[in-house]
């Protein structure tokens, strides 16, 4: 036992952790330098012929480029970083409020941009007027009759004291009634108003949505999936179908009515409305049914959502590259030998304003406080009367708007196309670098990744054949994670059993 007490009380790592700031930082920096030197030595011993292109040439080039071109690279990196941060912000918001790692954020950027560009450039040559609207309204009327039958049955006749308990048949009546009504009314109104009707893609989407929603609730009613406990109770069927069809209906009306180019000032708020409607639909159809699921299940669900939105967006607007111009300046300034793109500066300013606004919003307002409460503990937040659903809809709407801003900036830079969602994937390494729950983390992470990959591409890229921008961010984040698994600003997780 005496021997036991003679063991050192603390190991090297513990002593390091116990150091006080700022000494801790100094020691860490010194250690990092020592490790880097060691790596360099090993590297130089193993690959002597690679020393020049990897370890010498890039620095020579930086020296030669000093200061103007080097700073141009850095500034362009900073600006890219701001844009990454913009996308990452959307992730952070949703992650904080629902524990959901929203893979679909990238697609939401694309979706928002597609929506905006689609609205702005809308010049639909609609088909000649048809009388189809009448046929659809007849369908709607049949649906109404069915609904009436349903209510008559469940409310009971004048002699009955209590309404009859809803049976499977009456439920079926109700679902079919709702579906027929919304289907007929939706398309009928569109045909009536739009003087021609929606495009084929639209009609397919609209009708498929109704059929799928109705089918799900019919299956549920008839217990085809005996254990399918995740679906909402049958009484919600009508409401969910309503929210889906309303969302699509709103867009349909827009598509159907607008026959000339829409000014930005109208298209922008309309896109915002669409993004909010989207949040509502996502909440009703997805989030609500995934409460308390494992984070990996949530993650995969958002991948599914991403695929759906991508197909949806491109079905609506087609897969071509589109130009998006909302009037951001296009020229450039020359400052001290450096070329500064006005567009990029404007983008950075927009990003900065957005970030500042969000930070203010979530620190100082009531709903911000509610959001932070939800982020801390779902159960506790519920128990003090915060509605999770409201918070989720709000957060997804905010994320949608952030996505719209990011979409405007990215789309203005490189056109609105599918690859936009791939660029947005870069927000993932940004996030894990910065810490999943931290707004400042998203910004700092964005800047580090943006600058890091630009500098690496320009100066180290040639040594390995270029195009390292594709993976550099991921590898950088990965390496970083090995040393600090919770990210730069993330909270350290104490595991409990």
């Amino acid at each position: 036992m005496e021997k036991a007490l003679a063991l050192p009380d603390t190991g090297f790592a513990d002593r390091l952790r116990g150091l006080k700031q700022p000494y801790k930082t100094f020691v860490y920096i010194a250690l990092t330098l020592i490790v880097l030197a060691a790596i360099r030595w090993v590297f130089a011993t193993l690959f002597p012929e690679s020393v020049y292109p990897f370890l010498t040439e890039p620095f020579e080039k930086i020296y030669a480029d000093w200061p103007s071109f080097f700073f141009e690279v850095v500034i362009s990196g900073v600006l890219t970083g701001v844009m990454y941060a913009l996308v990452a912000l959307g992730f952070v918001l949703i992650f904080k409020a629902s524990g959901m790692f929203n893979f679909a954020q990238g697609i939401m950027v694309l979706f928002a941009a597609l929506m905006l560009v689609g609205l702005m450039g809308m010049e639909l040559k609609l088909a000649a007027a048809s009388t189809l609207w009448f046929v659809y309204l007849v369908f709607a009327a049949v649906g109404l009759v069915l609904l009436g039958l349903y209510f008559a049955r469940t409310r009971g006749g004048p002699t009955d004291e209590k309404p009859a308990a809803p049976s499977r048949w009456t439920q079926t009546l109700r679902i079919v009634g709702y579906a027929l009504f919304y289907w007929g009314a939706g398309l009928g109104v569109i045909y009536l108003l739009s003087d021609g009707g929606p495009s084929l893609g639209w009609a397919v989407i609209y009708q498929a949505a109704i059929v799928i929603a109705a089918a799900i609730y019919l299956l549920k009613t008839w217990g085809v999936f005996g254990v399918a406990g995740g679906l909402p109770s049958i009484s919600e069927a009508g409401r969910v179908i309503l929210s889906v069809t309303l969302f699509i209906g709103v867009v349909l009306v827009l598509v159907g009515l607008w026959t000339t180019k829409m000014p930005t000032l109208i298209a922008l708020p309309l896109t915002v409305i669409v993004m909010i409607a989207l949040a509502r639909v996502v909440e009703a159809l997805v989030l609500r049914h995934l409460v308390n699921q494992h984070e990996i299940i949530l993650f995969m669900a958002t991948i599914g959502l991403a695929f759906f939105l991508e197909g949806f967006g491109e079905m609506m607007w087609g897969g071509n590259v589109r130009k998006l111009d909302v009037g951001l300046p296009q020229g450039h300034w020359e400052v001290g030998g450096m070329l500064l793109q006005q567009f990029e500066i404007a983008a950075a300013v927009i990003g900065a304003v957005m970030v500042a606004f969000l930070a203010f919003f979530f620190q100082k307002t009531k709903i911000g406080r509610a959001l932070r409460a939800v982020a801390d503990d779902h159960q506790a937040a519920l128990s003090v009367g915060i509605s999770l659903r409201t918070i989720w809809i709000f957060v997804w709407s905010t994320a949608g708007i952030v996505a719209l801003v990011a979409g405007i900036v990215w789309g203005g830079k490189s056109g609105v196309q599918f690859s936009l969602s791939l660029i947005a994937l870069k927000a993932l390494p940004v996030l894990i670098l910065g810490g999943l729950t931290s707004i400042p983390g998203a910004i700092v992470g964005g800047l580090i990744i943006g600058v890091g990959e630009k500098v690496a591409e320009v100066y180290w890229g040639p040594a390995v054949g270029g195009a390292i921008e594709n993976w550099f961010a991921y590898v950088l984040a990965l390496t970083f994670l090995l040393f600090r698994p919770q990210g730069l600003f993330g909270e350290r997780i104490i595991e409990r059993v």
Partner: protein
Amino acid sequence: MLYRESGQFKTSYAADQAIFPILQDKVIVWGFIVLVFLFPFFETTGDLKSLWILLMVNAMAALGLNILTGYCGQVSLGTAGFMGCGAFAAFKLASEFPELNIIIVVLLSGLASAAIGILFGLPSLRIKGLYLAVATLAAQFFLTWSFIKIPWLYNHNTSGTITAPPRTLFGQQVTGPIPGRGLSAAELDVIKRDVVISQYMICLVLLIVFALIAKNLVRGRLGRSWMAIRDMDIAAELIGIRPLRTKLLAFAVSSYYCGVAGSMLFLFYLGSLEGGEAFSINDSFLYLFMVIIGGLGSIAGSFMGAAFITLLPILLIRVPGWLGLTIHVETVTHLQFMILGALILFFLIAEPNGLARLWQIAKEKLRLWPFPH
């Protein structure tokens, strides 16, 4: 009424732990296997390669991913990258050692992929869950980049594509371009058909053997350790399972399967490919979808998911054709995306165990039918 297990008693633990403990299942599976072996001789629509071989390759990859994601709980977004490793390893092996039997090449190519898998699985020492998913994303992007930027991998040719060399097995050509010089179209068709049938057979045998191996792995000690890590990694460690080693074994076995699938894709399906295009991030997602839709943590589910996702686009094109409608090719792609996305959401919400679970429920109902209680 035929599907009953009453009267079938097990007298040993071995019999109780057999893969198909119920006699009827055994009969059905054997019947099915005989059927798929006879199938190519009756298949005349020309879908043998474009559909069925592709399906088997996909099923192989889905098996691999299911081991990692479904059984060990580690989400991988780098499946296509690991498959690429297998394909390029097969190419290098076949071109460096021309005498090597093509089956050996396929089996060895998986090892390269397994090694890469272990390398990218190493971060699981420190990180897990979503973070690890991003690590596999890093693997995906890095690997596809290296398929383009490392000329050694494609023997420094200018186009950057790799082409399967012609190889024979038991005197029958099974890979590579078919020498068609001096042959009539009819003769060529016969030769082509023979090649495709032999490719089908090779893929089928590989798939059955590897599915059996996968089943054996997951029903024993290793599989239980994987599932323990998946269900609760902390508790698993506290009862004596080494988390890192168990996860790395899952990464190794999983990427081995993916590598074999990749070399099958290259040798028996595509014939020649370009690394950056054949193994893109979208393919990785598709494999993940196969596993989710088929059923996480189910061997049979891997087959169902692969079949579903392989057949979906073809059905989307053909069904409207049977109905006399024409749908634009682009619309089909978009529709496919939407349907996949919606199905993923549906399955994750309503039935996280996928098609395999639905099948199981159907079987349970059948076992009791026509007396539901």
